[in-house]
């Protein structure tokens, strides 16, 4: 419990706010570090250990088997296609949701999060129903490369929409009005004013979507299946586990893990880039806390001091 409840924060160390209830800060830090280590870091370390347990040579061999490479290629290319498509459609949807009015807008806004909320295996199932052997539309792309793309489109759509939406909401409309008063037409305004300001957030959303696409499993499993040509890396890893090749599975997993970490780094970079010209988001980015786009909520408004003379 607090020894000196009336003490105001000392100016020298900007000790903002309260002390954690009942615990010291040190204890809290210990708890957080322990929790993260136990839940996240140790398992990943164990996996990395396993991947190298038979030496670097084996690691390399496992990662470069024909199927491993085929799966990796499929995964990468499909993911790239998907984020490109969803980059465009996601932006369009964010635009419609923020700037346009149409019936059922609130419902559509909610439905965007469906891929977030729906279990991936169910997604796989419902995609098979619409685009598989019994498709009412007569389109059967089950167990093809196209199926991979469609499944990934499904699960990554919310990432881009929710990354762009807050930016559009927060965007200073007066910049657009100023551009109009200077003679810029609609498309010019989008190209030179709106888009450059969206770009960092869009890039962050795309990077996150890409990371998700690379590792996606449930939605691809039933829909794209496990043929050599339609097997994404995550399905391949599972196959390796089932055939008892734990080292191989670990090796390929490490490759995916490294890609994930790299992408997360990119996301942080893009967000810092985006806050270069702002002051409000600069505070959160500078705090080292990444702001993950999760849903269409308004971004936290920190107090802006306008008058700085």
């Amino acid at each position, binding site marked *: 419990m607090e020894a000196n409840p009336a003490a105001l924060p000392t100016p020298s160390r900007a000790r903002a706010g309260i002390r954690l209830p009942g615990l010291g800060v040190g204890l809290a830090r210990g708890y957080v570090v322990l929790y993260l280590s136990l839940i996240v870091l140790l398992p990943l370390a164990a996996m990395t250990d396993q991947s190298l347990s038979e030496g670097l040579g084996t690691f390399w061999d496992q990662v470069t088997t024909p199927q491993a490479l085929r799966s990796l290629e499929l995964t990468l290319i499909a993911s790239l296609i998907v984020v490109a498509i969803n980059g465009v459609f996601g932006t369009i949807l964010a635009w419609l949701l923020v700037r346009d009015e149409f019936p059922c807008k609130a419902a559509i806004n909610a439905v965007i999060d469906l891929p977030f909320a729906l279990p991936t295996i169910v997604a796989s199932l419902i995609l098979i129903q619409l685009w598989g052997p019994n498709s009412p539309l007569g389109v059967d792309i089950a167990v093809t490369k196209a199926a991979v793309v469609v499944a990934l489109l499904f699960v990554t759509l919310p990432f881009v929409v929710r990354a762009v939406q807050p930016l559009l909401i927060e965007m200073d409309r007066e910049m657009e009005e100023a551009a109009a008063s200077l003679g810029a037409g609609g498309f010019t305004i989008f190209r030179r004013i709106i888009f450059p300001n969206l770009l960092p957030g869009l890039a962050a959303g795309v990077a996150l979507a890409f990371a998700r696409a690379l590792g996606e499993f449930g939605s691809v499993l039933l829909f794209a299946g496990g043929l050599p040509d339609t097997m994404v890396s995550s399905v391949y890893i599972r196959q390796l586990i089932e055939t008892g090749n734990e080292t191989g599975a670990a090796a390929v997993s490490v490759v995916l893990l490294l890609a994930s970490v790299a992408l997360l780094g990119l996301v942080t970079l893009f967000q810092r880039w985006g806050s270069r010209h702002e002051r409000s988001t600069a505070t959160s980015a500078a705090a080292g806390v990444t702001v993950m786009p999760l849903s269409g909520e308004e971004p936290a408004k920190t107090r802006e001091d306008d008058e*700085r003379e």
Partner: protein
Amino acid sequence: MGISVEGANKSFGDFQALNDVAIEVPDGSLTALLGPSGSGKSTLLRAIAGLETLDSGSVLIDGEDVSTKPTQKREVGFVFQHYAAFKHMTVYENVGFGLKIRKEDKQKINARVHELLDLVQLHGLADRYPSQLSGGQRQRMALARALAVEPQVLLLDEPFGALDAKVRKDLRTWLRRLHDEMHVTTIFVTHDQEEAMDVANQLVVMNDGRVEQSGTAGELYEQPSNEFVMSFVGEVNRIGDAFVRPHDMEVVRDADQSTVEGMVQRIVALGFEIRAEFVLGDGTEVWAQLTRSELERLELREGQIAYLRPVQAKSFNGETPSESQGASTPPGSEDGGDAEVTAEAV
């Protein structure tokens, strides 16, 4: 390029922002749209720019009806209260934006941008980003940006509202000088009557979506057409039906039929003027503006009783405002006629 607006009406849902508004802005003038929040002044300005569409009525620029023209084509320069700087572009790119999209060649843009940056005293800051500038600098950049494309008309929406007092005063002077040099028809919106009177040659006072009165600062101050204008433009005391300016309120030690009794509540020295606050017998609070020598001569203290005489007063019963002047003669005066008090600059 003169501007005129006729029969303008605009509502936002239930709220009527403009109610049959008509104004005339002569070519080359510097006009202020003055009024409290919600008076419709910003809406009117934005309607002139094309950023709002009128429900009915028309906007004419240089005799041409532009009501159906989009903003892009109206050639109006617009300056926003919060600058609307293009955050992702440098100062140079901001100012040059209008020229760039008109596909002017690089050298011409370069020359013009630097010319304007010198004009607005932002020389040397061309490569900075708006977030690196102070508020006053950003606003000057916004002005340079608007002027770069040589607009017919310059519209400023509470341009100094987001700045603090000292900067506001400096930029005010600076705007007037700029206008003297460039002679572009300029309209600016403000709620600050001092600012309007200081800068503009014509004031349009608005309230509740209507134009109350327009004219020069002097005209509005001396001959306000109604109670609202009188109280908005300059300070005013109200005694019954009469409205008296504080500097028209004479304070004397001896009573007579023309005076009213009041007790001194507070004496405040505000810079060069002294403000003596009184409460009258019926509870009305009034204040009189005095000079230091008057204060000393009268030897006024808080709690004392003194007598107040309106030298000039206006009342607005019915349509036409009427004036009345103090009946008594100031001591020592030869005239015996009307006592004239010079209006002190407010």
